[in-house]
């Protein structure tokens, strides 16, 4: 199994351009997440989804949009890129959360490095 696959792995944008990051998982996971990783700030949650057709805001959602039209895919969009969005973006998925049933162990993709000039 491929697990969690992110495309593209690298991208350079100019300020104001738009782009979409694609995350695909083949584990039939219900929950999917987009994080950004910046030096000294750890991982911060951008948006997440608890099922097909649902999305919710994380702690840093401004400037991003997401869609979960199919259970296996979670798209992260930047409508008008800004230099502050230069970061490494990680997608993750999990089978379920809560309780003693394995409680939301995340499987991560390899990351997408985005540079906005």
């Amino acid at each position, binding site marked *: 199994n491929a697990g969690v696959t992110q495309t593209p792995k690298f991208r350079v944008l100019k300020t104001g351009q738009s782009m979409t990051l694609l995350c695909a998982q083949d584990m039939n996971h219900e929950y999917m997440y987009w994080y950004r990783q910046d030096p000294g700030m750890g991982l911060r949650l951008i948006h997440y989804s608890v099922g097909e057709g649902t999305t919710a805001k994380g702690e840093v959602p401004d400037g991003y949009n997401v869609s979960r039209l199919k259970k296996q895919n979670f798209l992260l969009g930047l409508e008008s890129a800004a230099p502050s969005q230069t970061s490494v973006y990680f997608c993750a998925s999990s089978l379920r959360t809560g309780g003693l049933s394995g*409680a939301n*162990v995340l499987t991560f993709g390899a*990351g997408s490095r985005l540079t906005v000039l």
Partner: protein
Amino acid sequence: AQSVTQLDSQVPVFEEAPVELRCNYSSSVSVYLFWYVQYPNQGLQLLLKYLSGSTLVKGINGFEAEFNKSQTSFHLRKPSVHISDTAEYFCAALSGGYQKVTFGIGTKLQVIP
């Protein structure tokens, strides 16, 4: 207050020496706790997790962590580190009604030959 606090941003340690990476959590997150490891240019992978039961949790690669409710801590330990343990380590906790995972800022472990 930060939900998950990692007290050290970098920890240098000599090869074969013991190491402890510290993590404290606040009441705003659950007591379902995790440690993840990130090797250079890779995604994160699970080291170990605490859900309930024994407060000493063993994970992969010889790591273990102890859950301490009174001190709201979940410190990670290894009795003897190897060069291959050089990586960034993240403490994390379930939050937001168990739908979200909140991460600390990470601790870079540098193992010195």
